[in-house]
């Protein structure tokens, strides 16, 4: 046989797949392995060795159990409320004739642009007991003294309220996708069989939407459990600790409490994995044939007299989560003294002057941009190759690759950071204190997002498009260059931007891993918050939101209007 022929024994593409597999193992399995190991270790100072002591300390004192209690309460409340708001909103947009459903849908998507912790800070400007505008107005109307207030955001209800505002969009997106896949035909079929409008909704629409409702609820519950930003801003001042803030306390404690932190984070990791598994099981069941089928036309429910009132009600969550917070942050950034209102004499550029002459902010801005660019590039590359291997079933173990690439959905950012900390603070991998460790955190955390975007993109490139090119005489490499890359380009750009945006404001992993030289914007915001530099935070927020909006609009420009939807497909 001539030298052109390929022996079956050695396949060069094996090297590519092996590299990706190793990269994924390092990114995902390594930190989890070290986290689990650390939880059973006695600290070096005390001589090392194996122990269960960490678990005993972590789960026996009242001080450590109360945060678990609050996490449970808050997660369930936030999950339920998010489900209510998100599902009702999705139903109105998908199934009724309210005005401007597209506008409502896009506004909810836009709310992803505001980081939750900035949203919470904005709500301090609105409902803080002393300087919150709503309370100032309340005092003004009733002529009350400076100590009286109507709202206090620094309470459990304030915490639940602001977390719901930033979690309901998750439910909204999942339920909207579910509802959009149910065609009116199945409802018509029920009507013809004699079911009335209400009976049809109860017996047909609701059961068909049930998987999406459950999935949305689980997503909101999970997100509420692992969120660090909002509790750090609102719960700590209220004297409440949740699990994520407690983990942070362990890590900044004087003593070495890494083992205890690791032990403390394991139930959270297990719960997160369990929730992700349940969600997949619910969405993966094939019994719902109409979902994903050739959906017929959808007829909107006619609301009649209620059309406008319902529309107003739909605007409420958007006003609270997008309009008011953005307005508060932008206006506060130009204020001299918060609480004196928007008067000419109170306007200033001082906040911007302050941040741009602040070394910590300048360094953090540089770090954030470098990290976001590096992480989104690396993440997109690994995810794209993994997705390609999975979609084309190039190797026997392709299922494990897709499992690994999507596994970080079940790893809370703060837990991931503790794992990375354990893995990379000792020889031979001394990465702590460098930007690299944070880059590892970002790449791992956003791998599922990039993987799902690439996967969805590749699904639209039929493998026969590549085979038809090969059979005409093109080599594997040439096929990549002429066919695959040109067709895949848009998904790659989408994936890059979708990772870049959250990297700009990543908090929960960064807050555990930063050192003086590796601060990022979100960490500086938290520093400023502890020093009560609220005007300056608002100025940073405006800079951050501008950067994010640039990314969003590049996305719209290069990828098209629906690129944010890639999130919906996970």
């Amino acid at each position, binding site marked *: *046989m001539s030298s*052109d*022929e*390929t*022996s*079956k*024994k050695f396949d060069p593409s094996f090297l590519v797949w092996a590299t990706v597999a190793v990269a994924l193992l390092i990114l995902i399995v390594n930190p989890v392995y070290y986290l689990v190991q650390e939880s059973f270790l006695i600290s070096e100072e005390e001589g090392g060795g194996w122990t269960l002591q960490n678990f005993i300390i972590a789960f026996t004192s009242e001080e450590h159990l109360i945060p678990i209690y609050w996490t449970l309460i808050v997660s369930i409340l936030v999950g339920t409320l998010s489900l209510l708001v998100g599902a009702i909103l999705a139903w109105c947009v998908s199934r009724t004739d309210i005005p401007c459903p597209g506008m409502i849908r896009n506004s909810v998507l836009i709310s992803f642009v505001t980081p939750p912790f900035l949203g919470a800070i904005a709500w301090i400007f609105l409902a803080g007991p002393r300087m919150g505008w709503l309370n100032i107005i309340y005092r003004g109307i009733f002529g009350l003294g400076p100590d009286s207030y109507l709202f206090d955001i620094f309470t459990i209800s304030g915490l639940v309220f602001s977390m719901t505002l930033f979690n309901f969009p998750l439910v909204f997106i999942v339920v909207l996708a579910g509802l959009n896949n149910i065609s009116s035909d199945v409802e018509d079929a029920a009507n013809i069989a004699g079911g009335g409008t209400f009976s049809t909704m109860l017996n047909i629409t609701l059961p068909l939407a049930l998987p999406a409702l459950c999935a949305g609820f689980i997503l909101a519950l999970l997100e509420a459990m692992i969120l660090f930003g909002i509790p750090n801003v609102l719960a700590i001042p209220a004297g409440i600790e949740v699990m994520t803030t407690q983990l942070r306390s362990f890590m900044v404690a004087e003593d070495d409490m890494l083992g205890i932190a690791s032990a403390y984070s394991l139930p959270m990791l297990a719960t997160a994995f369990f929730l992700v598994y349940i969600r997949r099981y619910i969405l993966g069941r094939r019994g719902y044939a109409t979902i994903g089928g050739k959906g017929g036309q959808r007829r909107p429910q006619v609301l009649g007299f209620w059309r406008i009132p319902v529309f107003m009600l739909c605007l409420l969550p958007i006003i609270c989560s997008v309009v008011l917070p953005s307005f508060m942050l932008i206006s506060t950034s130009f204020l001299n003294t918060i609480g004196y209102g928007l008067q000419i004499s109170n306007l200033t550029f001082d906040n911007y002057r302050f941040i741009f002459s602040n070394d910590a902010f300048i360094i953090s801005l540089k770090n954030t941009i470098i990290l976001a660019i590096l992480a989104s590039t690396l993440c997109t590359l690994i995810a794209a190759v993994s997705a390609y291997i999975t979609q084309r079933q190039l190797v026997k173990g392709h299922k494990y690759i897709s499992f690994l690439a999507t596994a970080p959905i079940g790893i809370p950012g703060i837990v991931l950071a503790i794992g990375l900390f354990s893995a990379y603070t000792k020889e031979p991998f001394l990465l702590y204190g460098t930007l690299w460790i944070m880059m590892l955190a970002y790449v791992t955390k956003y791998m599922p997002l990039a993987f799902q975007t690439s996967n969805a993109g590749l699904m639209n490139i*039929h493998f*026969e*498009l590549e*085979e*038809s*090119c*090969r*059979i*005409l*005489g*093109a*080599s*594997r490499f040439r096929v990549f260059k*002429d*066919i695959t890359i*040109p*067709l895949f380009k848009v998904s790659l750009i989408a994936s890059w931007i979708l990772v870049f945006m959250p990297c700009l404001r990543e908090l929960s992993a960064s807050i555990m891993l930063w050192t003086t030289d590796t601060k990022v914007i979100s960490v500086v915001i938290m520093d400023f918050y502890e020093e009560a530099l609220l005007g300056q935070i608002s100025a940073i927020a405006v800079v951050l939101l501008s950067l994010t909006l640039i990314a969003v609009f590049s996305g719209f420009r290069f990828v098209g209007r629906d690129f944010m939807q890639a999130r919906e497909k996970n």
Partner: protein
Amino acid sequence: MATLDLSKLLKVFGTDVRAVDEIDLHIEHGELISLLGPSGCGKTTTLRLIAGFLDPNSGEVIVDNKVVSDGNKILPPEKRNMSMIFQSYAIWPHKTVFQNVSYGLKFRNLTNHESEKRAKKMLSVVRMEHLADRYPGELSGGQQQRVALARAIVVEPAILLLDEPLSNLDANLREEMRFEIRRLHDEFHITSVYVTHDQSEAMVTSDRICVMNDGKIEQVGKPQEIYDEPKTRFVAEFVGVTNSLEGKVISSSVFDTGSMKLKMKENQIAVPGNQGFVSIRPHRIGISSVKTDKNSENMLTGRVKRSFYFGSTVDYLIEVEGMDDLLRVIVDPVNSFQLDSEVTLEIDAESVVFVE
């Protein structure tokens, strides 16, 4: 042009799914052969083995006496000088019609001028020259199929592979494209392998048909042979409609169904004493309302149980005494029979074919 040979070709998926089970097949220069069978019979796997997209576990694919695939080595698809037409057309959406058609010529050592001339000529052969600058998204299904044909043929491949090329077209267009494929074959005489599950498609387009089932070849032959002289019950029932009657061979020309003896076509595989089936095509059965002597050779009496009107034909299901299944008879609608009326059936011995 080339000859193609498959020798003991075996492809196993997983541990024990023998998708292609040691098949042998010889295809002549310029011949169009179709691989016909139900889904999952291994026909597409065979095609992909020929193309080099899959590697066989053992056996050989031989083009012009040169081994291109065996159990150890395979020549990559791009080195085989073959073309393939895919079920999904696989027209590249980011290239124009002209770019699609001329792409393969890049690998054929032609000057730009030559390849442009050839691509243009090819587009006019498939009557697409006026749409050369369109993108595939702007074309109908039939037009995309023509582009796929042009792109595959323009490179003048040694072997052309067609993988259910018409299954995504609507019924009218499918019929038109069948003749188009045969016309192009008559014009270019490229050795072709055509995979389909549609027997009429195979009949119209092919020189020979290879019927496959369960990874094995059931029968290879000219369309008429396959239809008139099926060797197995599977071929008889898969290609066209038929009545299969179970029974025993009495002699090389007599078959006993248990309730009656039928005279059948002389058949080498009909060994006296063997159990088997005879296949009788429904439109080869004569039917009349005239009562005749019950004992005449290959004459049966029955009762009309159901009828279906198709416009050009009528199907009758006839209950015959001693037979478990209803016998299907297809006739011209000028003859009509009442339900439950008694009829006489006459079957020409030449139409009673023994199958295994």
